[in-house]
């Protein structure tokens, strides 16, 4: 039962029963706006909008959202710094407009990440995967991805339990032990995954599986109001973003 905080938030979100297509439109629009609008004020507005929507109407716990936004931050900061350091004849120095350039890069990336996170914390993976079907992704691929989603939690639980059992017997008491234990851990989880797949396929055959993993589709109807508000909001954002720049 090892959970992933973002996934837990998605299942508990107030927007869980909204149509995934609606939420995809909103988050997708914000992601694109974050990418194409000038950083000031566009990205900043996008970032704000994503945070306000997530913590407000979608009622995502602030702790979860905050922690998740922090995750890509190390990469973003190191990447942005590296981008604006200049390699010249006299060694390293700052690029001419380093501060502005780095600021822009960070703003784009943080706003984009927040917009993706708005989707991630309001829409469980299992709602998004059927949407791929509409993007002409073959059913077989969608089904593989759905099984991946379900199996992931089973394997994550095995992973943490086995690791705990190893730690109890001092398997992670030193770096050397820890490497040896990690190899065994990975092997154990891999064999477990094969075993699981085999047993699940037996179990499903018994339930009449013939060609695919067909189930009753869940109906999450689109809300015209939500779509209209989204479009209006995005339009306003783009206008302000372009005019303000």
């Amino acid at each position: 039962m090892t959970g992933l905080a973002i996934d837990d938030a998605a299942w508990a979100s107030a927007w869980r029963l909204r149509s995934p297509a609606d939420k995809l439109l909103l988050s997708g629009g914000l992601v694109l706006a974050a990418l194409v609008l000038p950083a000031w004020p566009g990205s900043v507005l996008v970032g704000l909008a994503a945070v306000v929507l997530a913590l407000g109407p979608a009622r995502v716990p602030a702790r979860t959202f905050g922690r998740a936004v922090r995750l890509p931050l190390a990469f973003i900061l190191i990447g942005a710094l590296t981008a604006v350091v200049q390699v010249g004849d006299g060694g390293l120095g700052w690029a001419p407009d380093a501060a502005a350039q780095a600021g822009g890069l960070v703003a784009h990336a943080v706003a984009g990440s927040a917009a993706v996170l708005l989707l991630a914390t309001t829409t469980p993976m299992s709602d998004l995967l059927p949407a791929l079907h509409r993007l002409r992704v073959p059913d077989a691929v969608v089904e593989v991805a759905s099984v991946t989603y379900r199996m992931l939690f089973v394997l994550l639980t095995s992973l943490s339990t086995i690791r705990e059992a190893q730690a109890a017997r001092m398997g992670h008491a030193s770096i050397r032990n820890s490497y040896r234990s990690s190899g065994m851990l990975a092997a154990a989880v891999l064999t477990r995954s094969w075993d699981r797949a085999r047993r699940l396929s037996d179990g499903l055959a018994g339930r009449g599986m013939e060609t695919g993993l067909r189930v009753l589709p869940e109906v999450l109807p689109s809300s015209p109001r939500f779509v209209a508000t989204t479009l209006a909001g995005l339009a306003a954002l783009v206008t302000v973003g372009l005019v303000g720049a």
Partner: protein
Amino acid sequence: MSHLTLAAEGLVAGYERGARVLDGASLTVPPGRRLALLGANGSGKTTLLRCLSGALPPTRGRITLDGAELHATRKGLRAHRQAVQLVLQDPDDQLFSASVAQDVSFGPVNLGLPEEEVRARVAEALELLAVAHLAGRPTHQLSYGERKRVAIAGAVAMRPCVLMLDEPTAGLDPTAVGEALAALTRLQEADSTIVMSTHDVDLALRWADEVAVVVDGGVVQGAPDVVLGDDALLARARLDRPWALSVGARLQALGLLPDGALPRDADALLAALPDRPGVRT
């Protein structure tokens, strides 16, 4: 639903590696009743259930449903699975979908039923197992006992005539065991046949109409108090004698219990015992 008689005759079955697990096992599942399947670890309970469900083709012998032999063709299996469903011991071997309701719908959808009918069956199955409130929760957030009940609901939604369960009560607390047994009894009263494997001899004695013990590759079948009172058989099958039979027999000998069938659990025993010394009720 009408009752169908599921039976196995002279089954020989095993796995690639190793010896035969079943070697001439025969069993008749009493239609409309509750059968408990007992046996030591590795005796072949799960193997027998898998043969009966059509999942494992036996090397010899036959499985019949109301006399008609099961042939391991696509069509034969399809028909068999509509009538006979097996719930595996580990719920994670049966639950593949992240959504509880969708998972339960898998079987009915595979039967090719219209959407309305599927929806009705899902609701009914969730209701019968008392897990309707979980419909919107993701499978991976459920506790073990909850997953176990959802897995049973998935089989129940197929409306099988014979529902078989591999150790449905393992790992459940006493109250949950009671609830699971009550759900199975409801199902049986709604016209199903129930087969359940278990290691708990006391539970088998108290719940089952009939018991079958898998031992030495064969099956010994009969009334619970007879089979579970046969010490030679119990020793071969690595089982214990249910306490109610031992204690009941002695109390009968002491004249404290009426002659005839012994009580099968503590409540029945207490009810049958006199309240005060020296008074026979």
